[in-house]
């Protein structure tokens, strides 16, 4: 069991004086390998800020972020950039696929940017798309894909290169409930099968319930979290239908 990502007493504020806004206040969170954690809170609660800081896209005002036990603040900018290319994958609400590239090209892009040959990157991209049942969509452009397919391409891009951490910000966005479920099933399955760690931020309890642990955030503070409960079989014993009259 390895702690893949850890936030220690992380705070983030924007602006100064009367205009200062505290987006995150002394937030601590540790995610182990194979674990999927959902961060649940309303708009403006600080959950997206938590994700961008965990992903080293922003620096905290105070506190420390550790990736696989290594403090990010001790890393050079080049090392942090390498971390973002090789270790951490990002999934955004609006997919963020590049419109002029096919699905396969979008997925292979992070590998190519990291120096992998175009041929090898394409092979890896096709394999990743196949794994998400998108093999027959590899040559399609984003505007030729449905919303659910676009997000699965984005997930393939986030996971390619055997990255060990995936951070997702409202990954099901405006997708319907069936497609949303498919996205969460995919992310949770990847964590179980590959040992990948994931943090998913969402305001939606239904999506959060796919996570192994749900952390609740309010006004920039982590206020609570779910605890491992009794097994699912306890629910089946408690559920009783209405008897016939």
């Amino acid at each position, binding site marked *: 069991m390895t702690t893949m990502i850890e936030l220690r007493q992380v705070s983030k504020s924007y602006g100064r004086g009367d205009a200062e806004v505290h987006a995150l206040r002394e937030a601590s969170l540790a995610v182990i390998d194979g674990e999927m954690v959902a961060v*649940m809170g*309303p708009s403006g609660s600080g959950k997206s800020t938590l994700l961008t800081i965990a992903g080293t896209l922003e620096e905290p005002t105070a506190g420390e972020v550790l990736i696989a036990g290594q403090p990010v603040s001790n890393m050079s900018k080049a090392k942090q950039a390498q971390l973002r290319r090789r270790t951490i994958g990002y999934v955004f609400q609006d997919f963020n696929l590049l419109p002029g590239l096919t699905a396969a090209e979008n997925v292979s892009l992070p590998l190519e940017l990291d120096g992998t040959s175009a041929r090898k990157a394409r092979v890896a991209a096709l394999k990743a798309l196949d794994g998400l049942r998108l093999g027959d969509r590899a040559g399609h452009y984003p505007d030729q894909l449905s919303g659910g397919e676009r997000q699965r391409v984005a997930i393939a891009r986030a996971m390619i290169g055997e990255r060990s951490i995936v951070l997702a910000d409202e990954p099901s966005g405006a997708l319907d409930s069936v497609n949303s479920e498919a996205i969460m*099933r995919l992310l*949770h399955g990847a964590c179980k099968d590959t040992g990948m760690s994931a943090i998913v931020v969402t*305001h*939606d*309890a*239904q999506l*959060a*319930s*796919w*996570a192994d642990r*749900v952390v*609740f955030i*309010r006004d920039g503070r982590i*206020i*609570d*979290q*779910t*605890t491992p*409960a*009794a*097994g*699912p079989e*306890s*629910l*089946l*014993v408690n*559920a*009783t*239908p*209405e*008897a*016939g*009259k």
Partner: protein
Amino acid sequence: MSVRHAMLALLSEGPKFGLRLREEFEARTGEVWPLNVGQVYTTLQRLERDGLVESDGDSDSEGPQKAYRITGAGAKELDTWLRTPPDLSAPPRDELVMKVLVALELSDADVSEIIQAHRRYLVELMQQWTRIKEDGDPADLNSGLAVDAEIFRLASVVRWLDAADDRVRRVKADAEPPVANPATTDRGDPDDERPVPNVPWALPRLRGNSRQEGRTTPR
């Protein structure tokens, strides 16, 4: 879920013994609603009494030896039931809603904390149902739909808690005195002229608190 109509539905496929009815009921509801043998036979006896099913076996024989078949009246009853929407016109007496409303009336209750305790519990339940869905056979439509119904129901309760939490916070924020302006508070009763938030069930506590916090002179 009505066991009575579920039995009629299963018998509409052909005559069946009581034990088989129980097995099929549990299998088709994804074992979400376990049923005991007593419930099955009590239900079948009542259906027979009402002329909705009839039994083939010897009238003296015990349940397991009896095969039941649906009657014409039973088929009609089943069809009517399927097409009749359940009565959802009156809101149920919801214990959770009552707890939150009562908390609003108590001056020393932290309503957000109380709401969060319920929210956590509900999300934990949803996690358990989601694990059942994740581990289940995707081709088992009955089970998937039964579990979905429970997850959607719990999700709607969490959404209500989220909305309640947000409303309470907003009303509370509106009712709080302007602490950054000591000139106002020095005059004594800054909240007396404050507009009352338009949330009737929230008024007694929130207005009482804000007056207390804003007051600098004793009555």
